[in-house]
């Protein structure tokens, strides 16, 4: 069976700088994969290429067997990849609730015309969506702030909301960029459980960028390691922990 996500010799250059250099990697369905490496190694850039924000200079990316070259970010999301951002990008003036609700948009049966006619079908769908939004918010215990504008949330809560919002697009692959940043160890433990819970409950694959090794080693089945844009290692957490190159470059 083909991989869910497949990167083949992917390279991207910004002017003279090669940010990612001939990286190949895969993520299988339902798998929880880590992507680690020193600062500036190119992890976020890989995310940006997978989600269509950047087009690779060389190489190819395929999702569910289909190449994604030339697709716009929203088209890639339609195919089933969702992400969070390293620098949080919520809809700051929308309420917490609406941040999530908007993301359901992809699976709506109604559109602009139905918004105007507002027939019974429209209302049924809206009620259902509201229920589902609440369910999602409940995962991270965010219903208590659901009517606040998202910009007034603390940093940690904003991270959580971003994950929920991404889930609302019902992805097959979820890309998380440093979800544990800004959380204390206790909160990180909780987050680890939640990530696994999400994976199981929504049956999706997760690609995780994170600098906290407890988190990465604790939940990932496989880990890719980047340094200076190149892949220097791949393997199980145990293998990675023992890999001298990774220790030298990253773990210390």
């Amino acid at each position, binding site marked *: 069976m083909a991989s869910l996500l497949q990167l083949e010799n992917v390279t991207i250059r910004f002017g003279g700088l090669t940010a990612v250099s001939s990286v190949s990697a895969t993520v299988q369905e339902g798998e929880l994969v880590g992507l680690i490496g020193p600062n500036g190694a190119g992890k976020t850039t890989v995310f940006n290429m997978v989600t269509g924000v950047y087009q690779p200079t060389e190489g190819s990316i395929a999702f569910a067997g289909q190449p994604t070259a030339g697709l716009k970010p*929203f088209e890639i999301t339609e195919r089933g990849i969702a992400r969070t951002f390293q620098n949080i990008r*919520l809809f700051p003036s929308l309420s917490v609730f609406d941040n999530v609700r908007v993301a*359901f948009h*992809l699976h709506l049966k109604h559109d602009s015309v139905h918004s105007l006619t507002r027939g019974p079908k429209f209302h049924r769908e809206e009620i259902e969506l509201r229920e589902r939004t609440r369910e999602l918010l409940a995962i991270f215990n965010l219903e208590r702030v*659901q009517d606040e504008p998202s910009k007034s949330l603390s940093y940690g809560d904003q991270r959580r909301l971003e994950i929920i919002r991404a889930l609302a697009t019902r992805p097959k692959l979820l890309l998380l960029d440093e979800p544990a940043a800004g959380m204390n160890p206790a909160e990180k433990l909780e987050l680890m459980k939640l990530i696994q819970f999400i994976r199981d409950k929504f049956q999706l694959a997760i690609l995780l960028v994170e600098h906290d090794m407890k988190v990465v080693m604790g939940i990932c089945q496989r880990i890719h390691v980047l340094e200076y844009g190149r892949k220097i290692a791949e393997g199980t957490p145990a293998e990675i922990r023992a890999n001298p190159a990774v220790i030298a470059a990253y773990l210390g």
Partner: protein
Amino acid sequence: MKLPKSQIFLLVALLVAGGFSAFSGRIDPYILDVTLGVGIAITLASSLNLINGFTGQFSLGHAGFMAVGAYSSAMLTTTLGPKLGASAGVLQWVLFPASLLLGGLVAALAGLAVGAPSLRLKGDYLAIVTLGFGEIIKVILQNVDAVGGARGLVGIPDYTNLFWTFGVAAVTVYVVWALLNSTYGRGFLAVADDEVAAEAMGLNTTRYKITAFVVGSFFAGVAGGLYAHLKGYLNPGGFDFNKSIEIVVMVILGGMGRHVGVIVAAVLLAVLNETLRSFGDYRMILYSLLLILLMLTRPQGLFTWTPRKKSAA
């Protein structure tokens, strides 16, 4: 079948407009003129609010779309009206709405033509392009003899009445409100907040922006048609940059993206304009001072008590 509240609101609004309209013969024509002006302002402001307020684009060319609608609609009634040989009543109740629709459609088309290529521009660059479009429309109208050129288009019948004006205003407010208050519609707000994130959530941002532009221009065009048949005379100079600014002021004063606030701002400015008339040539001085004062004292918009983005539809 049980009608939802929002549609009942629309129906009631239409009925009330119709009811008042029956008595318009007894209303002082000056008051009527001002009232109709207010109704048109509501339509203009609400439609621009969809573009500038909710979707976060910055259009400075709303008067241009209004002009397109005004001229198309007036051309239809002035050329076709006399040929039909129908009674004034028939013309007012059949030809006139058709002409409003035409004005709206032509304006929407113009909105599409301007919007589609230029929506990749951001902020002030978009503002300049829309401003430029408005000016281009003005210059073209000035040069076309068939619509009166610089002299203006004369002899437009006075079909605009309370029913049409407030009916259109109610429909506009309803459409903007209904569009936004749905899961689909929250997308407009999301686009305004963060385009990158919106794309990442699978929202086709271009599509949203174009929809806002087309719907907004459509109602600007209809408002133009109403304006034409209220004033009875059109002059390209009346649709200049300053007119666009007037509408923008209503939207911002109303608090950008607040339904009620923008309506109230439209009413307030129109009424202010009339009440200050008695101050003669101090009128505009006072007007400008009041504008500054309003902004300094209510910078968040006049009516912040209206919840901006409720989670409930």
